[in-house]
């Protein structure tokens, strides 16, 4: 079916909606098979449903990608009632079909239970994790099978494209995006409308648009989940952008580590082509646009815009100086507009509902919503979408449900490897681009890694610096050597070999790395070190002066011991110890021979009575 005009599209949409309305009261089983749920066994659940339902068509079975609450996966929703089942296993599938689908009986054990009231909550929207969210961009994921373009059309997909192509001029679109206040969601936070405007005005006939899905920030996966779960929305944003800017070719640059995203966007492009949303004369508007997928090779720095363009061209992903902007001379030296996945996905809603509506969400300087991946030492891990300006406290405690095992919150790390750690006393910080930067961190692509009292901040700084030293492309000495030297010093400190003056030296190298490096990777590489020194200097001093790791993390500074009082001499730790470092006979409390102990933590893990202590 090739749609040749907006009328064709609306007729097609009406047919889909009518067909669906007729089936509205029919039972539907919706299973999330996003990467998070797959990690929890969703594909086995899929097989179980397929087997149990057979080819009987009275019950519709549908798969989607990420719903966000990955902690509780695999997630299954029974429609039309919207019953939210969590941690579904293949064994519970026959029960779900027999009781809920066939007899309308809810299975209490599979419902989400409120940790405070212990009440079972049947509907997704009533679960505290979802309650405070505003799922403007991410919300459709649960309704869409990403391989079915009809699903996207059923929720109003490509309506914004029609509005843009047939009732707006390119200038009007750019003006709309400008006044919406949309800022780039990939990290820099540059106003998207201004970028589009510069690119559209740059001299030249050929222009490119690029979608950056090289989500390299460890701990962030919102771009993957959007690309996997709702690729048409990203494409729609790109087509609108290309029309506004005057580009006829676009690239989607996806990490090769995201095979499902590559697959789903590939299917989406093919479908969009067939239906007439891509290719020549889109919907009869006279506008031509095509998108090609370019798979990344696994280099963190390739997420930097100039490096990414070099990578598409077939070169090593080294950034270049940007005194000539990419909007003037980017891919193959042509004017190029690059935005990240989430930025593109915001475009359709801005065009559809208007800048005025959109800019009411958020804060003065940061409009709209932001998707964060809330992970680490927190109860409700997953993807959340909240209006800009929500406080960290609301995010961590109201949505995230606080810290597990009664431990104490210590810090939240935002902004990826080049971001910083924000301490407890700043929990009331409203989260937006400017507030985070002021606090010594940054928005980045939206990773939020929560740390509790058992996280060592020096170890965290060492971890990020190690990552950055490996990922530095090596072009600038300040970044190549700066990250390496900082790592060496941090490594020494965590091994108990820290010296007086190390902190000051770290600050000095950090400052130089920040000031003298070309791209944002080097320019922010010292953030993890500098922000942890700023807020957790006492921990550095404990490592250096007292040779002590207060959080009990750094192997060289801790010892594992067995509490003889608590030990029940069950022999488990002795049996499992990989270096046979544990002694003890029948009915005799066990002991760890320190010389043999490699501090792997196995004994602590297998101990049934928590008798293994770390100091």
């Amino acid at each position, binding site marked *: 079916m090739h749609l040749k005009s907006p009328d064709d599209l609306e007729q097609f949409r009406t047919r889909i909606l009518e067909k669906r309305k007729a089936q509205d009261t029919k039972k539907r089983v919706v299973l999330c098979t996003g*990467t*998070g749920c*797959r*990690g*929890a066994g969703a594909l086995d659940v899929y097989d179980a449903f397929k087997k149990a339902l057979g080819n009987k068509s009275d019950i519709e079975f549908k798969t989607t990608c990420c719903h966000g609450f*990955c902690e509780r*996966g695999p997630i299954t929703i029974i429609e039309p009632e919207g019953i939210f089942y969590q941690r579904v296993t293949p064994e519970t599938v026959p029960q779900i079909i027999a009781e809920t689908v066939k007899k309308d009986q809810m299975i209490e054990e599979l419902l989400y239970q409120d940790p405070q009231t212990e009440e079972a909550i049947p509907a997704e929207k009533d679960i505290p994790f979802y309650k405070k969210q505003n799922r403007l961009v991410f919300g459709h994921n649960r309704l869409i099978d990403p391989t079915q373009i009809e699903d996207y059309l059923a929720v109003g997909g490509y309506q914004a494209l029609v509005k843009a192509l047939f009732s707006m001029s390119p200038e009007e679109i750019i003006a709309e995006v400008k006044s919406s206040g949309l800022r780039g969601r990939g990290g820099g936070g540059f106003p998207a409308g201004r970028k589009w405007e510069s690119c559209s005005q740059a001299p030249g006939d050929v222009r490119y648009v690029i979608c950056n899905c090289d989500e*390299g*920030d*460890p*701990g962030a*996966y919102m771009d*993957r989940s959007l690309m996997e779960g709702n690729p048409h929305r990203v494409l729609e944003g790109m087509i609108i952008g290309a029309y506004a800017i005057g580009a006829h070719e676009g690239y989607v640059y996806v990490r*090769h*580590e995201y095979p499902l995203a590559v697959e789903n966007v590939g299917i989406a492009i093919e479908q969009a082509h067939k239906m007439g949303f891509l290719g020549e004369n889109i919907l009869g508007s006279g506008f031509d646009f095509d998108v090609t997928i*370019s*798979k990344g*090779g*696994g*280099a*963190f720095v390739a997420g930097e815009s100039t490096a990414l363009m070099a990578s*598409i061209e*077939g070169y*090593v992903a080294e950034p270049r100086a940007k005194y000539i902007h990419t909007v003037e001379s980017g891919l193959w030296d042509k004017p190029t507009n690059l935005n990240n996945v989430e930025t593109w996905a915001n475009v359709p809603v801005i065009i559809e509902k208007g800048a005025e509506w959109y800019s009411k969400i958020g804060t003065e300087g940061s409009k709209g919503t932001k998707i964060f*991946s809330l*992970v*680490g*030492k927190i109860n409700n*891990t*997953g993807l959340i979408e909240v209006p800009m300006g929500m406080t960290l406290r609301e995010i961590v405690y109201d949505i995230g449900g606080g810290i597990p095992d009664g431990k104490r919150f210590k810090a939240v790390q935002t902004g*990826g*490897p080049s971001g910083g750690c924000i301490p407890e006393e700043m929990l009331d910080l409203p989260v937006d681009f400017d507030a985070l930067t002021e606090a010594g961190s940054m928005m980045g692509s939206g*990773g939020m*890694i929560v*740390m509790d009292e058992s*996280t060592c901040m020096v170890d*965290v700084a060492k*971890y*990020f610096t190690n990552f950055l030293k490996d*990922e530095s492309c090596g072009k600038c000495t300040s970044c190549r050597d700066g990250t390496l030297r900082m790592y060496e010093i941090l490594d020494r400190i965590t091994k108990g070999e820290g010296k007086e003056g190390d902190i000051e030296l770290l600050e000095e190298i950090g400052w130089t790395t920040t000031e003298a490096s070309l791209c944002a990777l080097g320019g922010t590489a010292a953030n993890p070190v500098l922000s942890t020194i700023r807020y957790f200097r006492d921990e550095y001093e404990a490592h250096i002066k007292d040779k002590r790791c207060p959080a009990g993390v750094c192997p060289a500074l801790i010892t594992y011991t067995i509490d003889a009082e608590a030990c*029940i*001499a*069950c*022999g488990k730790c002795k*049996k*499992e*110890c*990989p270096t*046979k470092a544990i002694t*003890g006979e*029948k*009915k*005799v409390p*066990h002991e760890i021979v320190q010389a043999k102990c*490699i501090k*792997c*933590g*196995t004994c602590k*893990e297998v101990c049934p*009575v928590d008798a293994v202590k770390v100091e």
Partner: protein
Amino acid sequence: MEELQELLKTYPANRHSLLRILQAAQRQMGYLPGEALREVASYVGVSPAEVYGVATFYNQFRFIPYGTHHTVVCLGTACHAMGGQLILDAFERELDIKAGEITPDHEWSLDRVGCIGCCTKAPVVVMNDAINAKMTPFKVEEVLAGLGLQLKRSTDSEGEEAGEREPQ
């Protein structure tokens, strides 16, 4: 190499194709032997050193084959915070190789990755393309033993002799 020749023909012979060709070649062969790099270089029309430079820049490319069982340990931030390093240590200890290496019998190979974006299940490892969630050093041993590895620690019943003592 004949298959590689066939594969090359499906791509335009220009610089823009280089990354895509290397990716496809690796998919075909499992890794990139030196000979393949030279073939790709002559097809694209750049020096072998240039191709090698590009291939070694990106983490994706390997120059040794995969083992029968290939393990990738995720060391993303969430995985690190949840003990990912201990997981890598456990694999290195049991397999007696470092990340990026393969055992002499070509049965086991080990790699690390920056992040696979499965952060809510941290720490995770990907073994033979399947995700293993919420790993612990002990689970590493279990999984490896399940795949047929003779574990380092003896499997005799020494530990059980210690017997049980009731909790006090």
